[in-house]
């Protein structure tokens, strides 16, 4: 019960925070098609978060609803990896991060499709199709930017340099997330590298193991993000929405 709940919460937190960052692109995207695509991906991830929180609330016996998790926990109680909480930066940073995130999450969820809990397994199966689209969208753009203009190449490479130190955390084993981390790492790295090759970009080798998001150790960006996300809900906790 508790272990399943904890697993669902950390996967949900990753998705919720990633969705919140994607929502911040709204009305700011470089083209209407991107506006639509980023919203689509954000909505998919928000949907994943909601299913996972619902499962967690039943599994941990508290019966908490999704909003209890999203709106009434403090930053130190969130279990997301730090990668998703970093500010959006420019479009290059956002699509490079998305490429890494979607590729990694797709590998995780592929392995979770035969997890003992049928509900989590079903969520994983459904999410795989979505993540596959997220990954292709991001890959397509990373290639366009890497193989575009001098400026886009520079920005894409910088984005990679900024994302690289956060890879280590993705592949740190976690007691409640029962997947073979080594194979997730191998697959994720292989797929991302293939895209980068096509894009003519280089993944820096520095892969810091620092992280700690899974233990509630976050950057200063998470409290700011949550302050925004939770502000209306917390202003009037008696309210019904």
């Amino acid at each position: 019960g508790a272990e399943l709940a904890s697993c669902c919460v950390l996967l949900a937190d990753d998705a919720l925070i990633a969705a919140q960052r994607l929502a911040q692109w709204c009305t700011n995207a470089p083209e209407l098609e991107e506006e639509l695509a980023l919203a689509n991906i954000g909505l998919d991830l928000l949907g994943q978060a909601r299913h996972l929180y619902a499962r967690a609330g039943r599994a941990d016996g508290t019966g908490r609803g999704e909003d209890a998790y999203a709106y009434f926990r403090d930053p130190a109680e969130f279990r997301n990896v730090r990668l998703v909480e970093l500010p959006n930066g420019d479009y290059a940073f956002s699509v490079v991060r998305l490429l890494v995130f979607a590729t990694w999450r797709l590998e995780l969820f592929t392995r979770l499709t035969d997890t003992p809990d049928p509900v989590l397994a079903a969520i994983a199966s459904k999410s795989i199709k979505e993540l596959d689209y997220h990954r292709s969208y991001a890959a397509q753009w990373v290639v366009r930017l890497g193989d575009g203009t001098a400026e886009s190449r520079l920005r894409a490479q910088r984005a990679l340099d900024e994302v690289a130190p956060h890879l280590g955390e993705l592949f740190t084993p976690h007691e409640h997330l029962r997947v073979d981390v080594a194979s997730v790492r191998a697959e994720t790295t292989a797929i991302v590298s293939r895209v980068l090759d096509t894009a003519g970009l280089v993944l820096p080798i520095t892969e810091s193991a620092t992280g700690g998001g899974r233990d509630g150790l976050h950057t200063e960006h998470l409290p700011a993000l949550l302050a925004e996300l939770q502000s209306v809900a917390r202003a009037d906790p008696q309210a019904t929405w």
Partner: protein
Amino acid sequence: LRLHEQFDDTIARDQRIEPRDWMPDGYRRTLIRQIAQHAHSEIIGMQPEGEWITRAPSLRRKAILFAKVQDEAGHGLYLYSAAETLGADRADLTQRLIDGRQKYSSIFNYPTPTFADVGVIAWLVDGAAICNQVPLCRSSFGPYARAMVRVCKEESFHQRQGYELLSTMMRGTDHQRATVQDAVDRWWWPSLMMFGPPDGDSPNSEQSMAWRIKRHTNDELRQRFVDMTVPQAAALGVTLPDPELRWNEERGRHDFGTPDWSELHRVITGDGPCNTERVARRRAAHEDGAWVREAASAHAATQAARAREGAAA
């Protein structure tokens, strides 16, 4: 001349003009302007609501609002495409919006200070938009009529969701009820103004009616909106801020007060609360995204060159 007769005949028989058909220049120009303005309204209209996605107070409301704003981007896209079938160019239309040479619905120049505004916009503003747009599903220009069918369907859905949000809030705390009433007070008159100036002051209407790209007068549509909205307001338990509003047994319709037309004029001519801000934000997004669009074009050009080389080899 033959062509003109054919065109008039198609209109008279209430059939559709398609992009390849001959059409008078005025018809084309008027339609491009109207469709572009409509497309711009969808895109600018994302801003007042979009600002609340990150702060929506429940995950369900967050998903609903996120999807709604995404739909608006989608509507913008179809509408720009419809304008392109008339020979307009999307990049050019965007530039006109950004330079202030083309307008968008004045309603989006009002701010959204609370989450209740999200509900009230969906209920009243989308409600008024639907009244305006349902007749356009029978517009004489095919691509516009077809786009309108889809847009109206989605907007009805949005309107119901907005109404549902407001009913939930009205069953909530006193503070929530007060917030809803406050938002209704702010949006009621601007919503009535969405139908444009009174018929006597609407010089282009007659020609548009003849071309069947407009189907009803501004005042008629406004009356329909009022008649439709009054019972909904009663069901919600909110008061519409018009002391002259009452049922007229004789007419079988509601009488209502006169909007402040000088305010409409001010907002349309650029002097509303958020006009410059809305355009500035759209411009910033467009300009900040220039390097991305350039990268995409450069990549596409390289790809095409590679394909040509491959074919030649």
